[in-house]
């Protein structure tokens, strides 16, 4: 296996106070700190060439985990071995083999064309010239940034810049790629391009990819396995298909209707209900879809209806609910 985390914990001390001038002055003399358990006994292993979605609500500890795995932060407790190294102890050798994209940060020089930043990265990683050329050509083609890389970073839109950031993180052909919200700010076309691209490098170069995201379509399109983290703990580590199967018990019916609809039989429940429009969950173990529909058809005049199986969004929402996140 390439990545192994065992019992990783990390706490931060955070100064906090209530708003207002008076409270601010008071905190000059007496600070109140609280300890935040960003990570609490996090363990998992990831095999070579795997692609894993690392999900959880805001502030769950996703980015902290990524930062520990990339050698930026020292954990308080626990072990982490990646490619046979402890990231924070042997940082320089470790980072040579990984690529990181922080969706909300930039590694490109603000005032110079992107291509100049690429050349700096080439020299930092000591990439041989022919390999560099090959990689740039491929990345430029796949991410469609041929025209963009001649422009200064400051003149790029967020989506254009993100594509360049991703390219910049892959110039040295890393074995492991950490993507911290890589599709932030991308338009639909770019998103699909980036996803296709990540899939490609995972398949072709056997690059291990770990991806944190809030975009459930990213997860659906890219990963087979997800690790759910909440309040600093790993809550679930499993296969997406299993999850879907588990959650597909519940189907969603959306109907537009005329008439009165109040009571629902066992196995059906409102998610939303407005005048003439309702979203209803059906537990297929208790009531079949066809009997649910015939029940509704009997009660009211249906003008339009759809039946949906659980989307990735639903699954994530339900997971968060189930674990009280």
């Amino acid at each position, binding site marked *: 296996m390439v990545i192994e985390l065992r019992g990783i914990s990390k706490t931060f001390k955070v100064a906090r106070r209530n708003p207002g001038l008076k409270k601010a002055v008071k905190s000059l003399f007496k600070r109140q700190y609280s300890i935040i358990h960003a990570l609490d006994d996090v363990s998992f292993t990831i095999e070579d060439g795997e692609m894993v979605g690392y999900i959880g609500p805001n502030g769950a500890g996703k980015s902290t985990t990524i930062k520990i795995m*990339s050698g*930026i932060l020292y954990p308080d407790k626990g072990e982490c071995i990646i490619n046979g190294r402890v990231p924070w102890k042997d*940082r*320089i050798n470790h980072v040579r083999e990984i690529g990181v994209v922080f969706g*909300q940060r930039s*590694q490109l020089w603000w005032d110079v064309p992107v291509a100049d930043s690429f050349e700096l990265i*080439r020299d*930092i990683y000591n990439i041989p010239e022919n390999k560099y050329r090959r990689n740039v050509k491929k990345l430029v083609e796949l991410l469609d940034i041929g025209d963009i890389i001649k422009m200064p970073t400051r003149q790029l839109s967020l989506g254009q810049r993100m594509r360049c950031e991703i390219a910049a993180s892959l110039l040295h052909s890393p074995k492991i790629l950490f993507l911290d919200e890589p599709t932030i700010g991308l338009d639909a076309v770019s998103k699909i391009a980036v996803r296709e691209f990540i899939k490609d490098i995972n398949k072709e170069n056997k690059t291990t990819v770990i991806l944190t995201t809030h975009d459930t379509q990213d997860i659906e399109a890219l990963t087979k396995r997800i690790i759910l983290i909440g309040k600093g703990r790993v809550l679930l580590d499993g296969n997406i298909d299993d999850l879907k199967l588990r959650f597909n018990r519940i189907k969603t019916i959306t109907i537009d209707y005329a008439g009165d609809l109040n009571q629902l039989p066992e196995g059906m429940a409102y998610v939303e209900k407005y005048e003439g429009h309702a979203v209803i969950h059906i537990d297929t173990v208790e009531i079949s879809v066809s009997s649910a529909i015939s029940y509704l058809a009997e009660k009211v005049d249906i003008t339009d209806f759809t039946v949906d199986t659980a989307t990735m969004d639903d699954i994530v929402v339900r997971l968060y609910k189930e674990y009280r996140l």
Partner: protein
Amino acid sequence: MKAYISFFRIRFINGLQYRTAAYAGIATQFAWGFMFIMLYQAFYKSNPGIVPMPFDQLSSYIWLQQAFLALYMTWFVNNDIFNLITNGNVSYELCRPLDIYNMWFTKSCAYRLSRAALRCFPILIAAFVLPEPYKLGMPYSWIFAILFIVSMALALIVVVAYCMLVYIFTFYTISPVGARITLVMIADFLSGGLIPLPLLPDWLTKYIDFSPFAAMQNVPFRIYSGNIPADKAALAVLLQVAWAVILVAIGKILMSRALKNVVVQGG
């Protein structure tokens, strides 16, 4: 090594984008240079008896100072590095297979050298053709010229190593303002940035001379015009070497400690 050279390259490219800023800088430095020289002339005229530094040497000192302002002024800190720390982009810096201290040291040197290289020549050339005693003279002798160049390089190392301490303190304080103002003001005064050290009272300079501050611009600019005699110049250069080693060592130790406790700002 290639990586470090590359930092210089991208810095120069970066600097070249701001031509207007460079022109404005040159104009400012001229104005300051003339202003200082006029000011000192007034002082020198009012009491010609006791002059600790001949006027022509003073003129050379001031023109060198203005031409190489970007190299030695401690307040000329690299804001990019402060921003990296305060907004959390330091994450990316730590993802590079390079030693952070060496990388920032190089970045700072590149920042100063690129700015100085873009600005120094017009000032130097113009100062050379000014009338006596306001002009920038020739080096005292060719030995002093060599010593001057060696001492310039050492002074840059001392200044950058000192500024590195300011960057490192930012890891602890988050806002760079406090540490920066204190450390920078002390250095500016004690290094001869405001007033050349020979013009300060002797009871003070006899201590300052051994401090890291005297190992900054003070040494090369005074060696140039022969204000420091040969034997003392050698000692001064040795002191520069010593301070360069000490400051870099302190910086490296503090940096490795800071990185153990680093907190990345902004998630």
